[in-house]
């Protein structure tokens, strides 16, 4: 039996297929915990998880917090503006401080790509990347894959997934493309040419500068949020134009397979990248993604906080 402990989860790029599938399998068991009347198991009793969010986030931070609490760990949240970083402390000193407090796992979100890797180099604690700059958001990709498994089964081979929107700035797109390709899916990326990264072909996906060919025959459609801070020349002239050319409406959705899943990592801009009736429609699994998020993060924290030790016995 191989050791399935993951000391850090920094990115999908560092994950192998067996570990990714192990996380998804475990998440299935943890989903059951969230659906019981008593939504707590004593697994990580006495462990400390510190969420350090240098970048604002409600959804992801709450999801990690609930995941830790449902495992009985002690969870502490540190926000960017309230942290010592705003007083001039370096990231390295913050890490040393958290280590001295005997944190078992540090969950970090940072605007700088690679910040979690830097932290992992110095921390004694396990490090989980909750989103770093334009780089990766591995737990989002895992929860998306888990949601797809729930609806379409465990075999991703031959499955067509379209990811549409601002591909350049999206860590969600990047982590998803890496994970879905690893699981064997056929991934199409679509976005305005100004929002497709250079060397995008290296992700091993089909790439389009229109949404229609990506939607054609898709089993899953993932819409990305248009980040308003990217607006304006030269990248994206107006929201209305973006919505008209790249928004997912019910007419466009008919290009995909009947029963194709509609996904969105949230928060949604209704009427911009996704039409109201599609977001609330039969094919939308957007709220299932939120539920899956807690289960997947419980699985990740369980694997990151467990210590290697004697094999279990009766």
């Amino acid at each position, binding site marked *: 039996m191989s050791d*399935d402990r993951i000391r850090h989860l920094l990115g999908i790029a560092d994950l192998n297929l067996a570990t990714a599938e192990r996380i998804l399998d475990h998440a*299935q068991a943890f989903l059951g915990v969230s659906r019981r009347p008593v939504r707590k198991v004593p697994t*990580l009793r*006495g462990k400390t998880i510190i969420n350090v969010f240098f970048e604002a986030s409600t959804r992801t931070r709450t999801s990690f917090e609930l995941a830790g609490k449902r495992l009985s760990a002690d969870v502490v949240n540190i926000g960017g503006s309230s942290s010592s970083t705003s007083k001039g402390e370096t990231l390295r000193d913050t890490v040393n401080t958290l280590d001295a407090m005997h944190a078992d796992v540090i969950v970090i979100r940072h605007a700088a790509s690679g910040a979690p890797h830097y932290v992992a180099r110095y921390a004694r604690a396990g490090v989980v990347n909750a989103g770093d700059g334009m780089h990766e958001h591995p737990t989002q990709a895992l929860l998306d894959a888990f949601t797809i498994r729930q609806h379409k089964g465990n075999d991703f081979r031959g499955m067509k997934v379209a990811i549409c929107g601002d591909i350049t700035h999206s860590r969600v797109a990047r982590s998803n493309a890496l994970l879905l390709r690893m699981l064997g899916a056929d991934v199409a990326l679509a976005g305005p040419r100004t929002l497709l990264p250079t060397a995008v072909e290296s992700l091993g996906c089909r790439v389009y500068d229109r949404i229609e060919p990506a939607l054609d025959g898709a089993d899953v459609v993932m819409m990305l949020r248009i980040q308003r801070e990217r607006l304006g020349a030269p990248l994206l002239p107006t929201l209305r134009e973006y919505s008209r050319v790249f928004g997912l409406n019910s007419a466009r959705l008919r290009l995909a397979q009947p029963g194709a899943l509609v996904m969105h990592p949230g928060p949604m801009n209704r009427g911009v990248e996704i039409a109201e009736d599609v977001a609330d429609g039969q094919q939308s699994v957007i709220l299932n993604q939120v539920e899956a998020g807690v289960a997947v993060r419980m699985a990740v924290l369980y694997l990151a906080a*467990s*210590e290697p030790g004697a094999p279990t016995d009766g």
Partner: protein
Amino acid sequence: MAGELVERHAGARDLVIVAVRRGGIVIASELVRWLRELEQYEPPLGSVDVTFYRDDASTAKPNPRIGPSDVPCSLDGRHVLLVDDVLHTGRTVRAAIDALMDYGRPRLVELAVLVDRKGRQLPIQADYFLKAEAIADEDRIDVFADATGITAVVQSKSAASIPPGSVTPH
């Protein structure tokens, strides 16, 4: 074993059988089958995975195979029969009792096992068992289920320990 259960709880109809994953499942299913034949009574059957409740959960290697726990009804006020294949240290049963409590407050919890191999590390005993025999710590008991029933075989590592034997619940 089913006969004894019926004898002790004649007429009671609040039984819920909960198997400890994964070893308890075949035995629990057999028990349900016997109760159906003997008593024309089929109690609800559930299962719990105790991985999350183990006392070494955060220090042991992560369990590579965690199954879903599935308890079909609230356990409030019910008579729960916990079923496992082998009773050894008692730690798994302790964890299973903890798990049960998260599904309600049973009126009574009893334990049925195929083999009690002794070697307890906690004050826990089986209410029903088919065979009780001290078996060396380093030996392993394998439980098989096939068309002829359930068989437990001792896989002995040390020559000095008792010879391999088997029990069959019929």
